[in-house]
């Protein structure tokens, strides 16, 4: 470990000695195309230190120190508010982001940052049910995942907010409920469902559904799109009628950044339709860039999994940050569920 940090220190020192500015970008994994960063480096004559995280807590733990060394990060919608409260974000200058007009109109006034002062939506998705087409009847709502005939053939996400969220919606409550009695009732639903479940899986559910081990899985749109591409014709995806969660990952500049102008150039670069389209082509994620969508082949652009129609999205809720009391109760309920 010592040796490693020494080598790392040496590398950082060497990079600092090379001429020209360097931009530090910390993103989710699988969120740019292989050529995105090199092309930016060539065009702007800069170096980019690009690294990825698997969970936002990992990212937040680093940037909370206030001298993490990152310039640009990608928080999800429920992290923008907390990061702002912690004083971690720098205000955005829209006059430095001319391609902002390419943003999908649906994402120009997001509830977590209505004037886009601190963050700009980048990619988005939702939580639904990925299932085998052979499943009859086809699921339409969360309640269909409580069917005893599916014993051992279903998975739910290994994510407290998602499992509890699906149970809350099944009961007709809000995903973001902080009401203890509603949360307890939802957890009772989760406890009743647990014996039917094969496992709680996130991205690993993809391989299991593709292989046919699992008939139906609670899954994110990104995972579903990848699975459906891997097993064409066999799988389908539905956003449940009883309501579901949406998420959006945003790009933001940290207050600690000393390369604010370059960071804006990076954001503007990501918003260029050609760049955004190349990222979508490589990653199969849903972009918040309307200009990019026009450049995509019709079959990608009209993919109802990635870009659900407006009447379906009307049933969605954004996940919101939970107050401490609610979070403590949710953690306790999750532990109870897992140890049952």
């Amino acid at each position, binding site marked *: 470990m010592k040796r490693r940090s020494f080598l790392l220190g040496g590398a950082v020192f060497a990079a600092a000695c090379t001429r020209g500015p360097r931009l530090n970008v910390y993103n989710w994994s699988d969120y740019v195309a292989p050529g995105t960063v090199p092309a930016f480096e060539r065009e702007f004559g800069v170096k980019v230190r690009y690294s990825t995280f698997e969970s936002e*807590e990992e990212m*937040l733990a680093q940037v909370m120190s206030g001298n993490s060394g990152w310039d640009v990060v990608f928080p999800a919608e429920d992290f923008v508010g907390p990061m702002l409260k912690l004083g971690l974000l720098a205000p955005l200058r829209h006059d430095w982001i001319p391609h902002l007009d390419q943003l999908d109109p649906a994402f120009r006034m997001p509830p977590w940052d209505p004037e886009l002062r601190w963050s700009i939506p980048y990619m988005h998705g939702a939580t639904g049910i990925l299932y085998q087409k052979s499943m009859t009847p086809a699921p339409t709502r969360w309640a269909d995942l409580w069917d005893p005939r599916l014993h051992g053939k279903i998975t739910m996400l290994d994510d407290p907010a998602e499992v509890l969220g699906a149970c809350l919606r099944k009961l007709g409550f809000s995903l973001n409920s902080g009401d203890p009695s509603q949360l307890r009732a939802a957890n009772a639903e989760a406890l009743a469902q647990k014996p039917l479940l094969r496992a709680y899986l996130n991205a690993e559910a993809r391989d299991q559904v593709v292989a*046919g081990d699992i008939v139906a899985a609670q899954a994110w749109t990104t995972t579903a799109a990848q699975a459906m591409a891997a097993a064409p014709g066999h799988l389908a995806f539905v956003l449940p009628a009883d309501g579901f969660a949406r998420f959006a990952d945003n790009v933001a500049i940290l207050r600690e950044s000393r390369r604010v102008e370059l960071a804006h150039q990076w954001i503007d670069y990501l918003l260029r339709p050609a760049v955004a389209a190349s990222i979508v082509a490589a990653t199969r994620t849903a972009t918040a860039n309307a200009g990019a969508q026009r450049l995509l082949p019709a079959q990608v652009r009209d993919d109802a999994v990635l870009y659900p129609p407006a009447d379906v999205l009307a049933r969605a809720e954004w996940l919101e940050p939970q107050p401490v009391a609610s979070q403590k109760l949710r953690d306790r309920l999750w532990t109870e569920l*897992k*140890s049952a």
Partner: protein
Amino acid sequence: MVLTLAAPLLIVCAYSMLSRGAYGGVELPVTPENYARLFTPLYAGIFLRSFAVAGIATALCVALGFPLALFIARSRRPNLCLALVILPFWTSFLIRIYAWIFLLRDTGLINTVLLRLHVIGEPLPLLYTNGAVVLGLVYGFLPFAVLPLYAVIERVERQDKVLLEAAADLGASSTAVFWRMLVPLCMPGIRAASLLVFVPCLGTYLVSDLLGGSKTVLIGNVIQNQFTASRDWPFGAALSIVLIVAAAAMLYAGRRGGAELA
């Protein structure tokens, strides 16, 4: 030594007595709440289950490791055999556990072969069970048991060979020589092997997540969750401290017991 061992432990200890920050991290004031929350049947049950799973995995590791170490000690190429035992370490543990997923799942190798041979009509539910978790732990930590067992068996067979031969000459069957001579003489190695397996098994969270399908929660999973989704660092630190104390107490009791036996 002080810096690398004591300092992180002291930080964990200090964190466990502070309040949680709303978005992770710790804040003042100092509070006993993290420990108070912990002493409930829910967490006691999880601790007990973690100790039981680690105990079963340890017993299996020693039971399988002993004959293997004996075989290696008596083989003509012990160094080659030891190299083969250590060979899996050249690949990441995570990747080897993923390989088990491919072996165990419904459409995996084991079920496919058994189905083809008509031994079974339906795929056996192998993956995402408690058995799979124990299997993963035994697989992962068996080398930690084999190495100290080999060291002690090799020494006993060399130094105390006369004792073993004397027992046989006096009419003890080979089973009696094994159980009443060899095993007691190898006790220090068995204790060392148990320790080396039990402690890492106790803190594991990867195996229960990947092979258990996150359906059973071990104390390692609860701790991990406090530092990620739940963002409750002080509670995670308190759980860690209790785990360390409980493990240390067990080790101390084990040593005392061992000393009395000897």
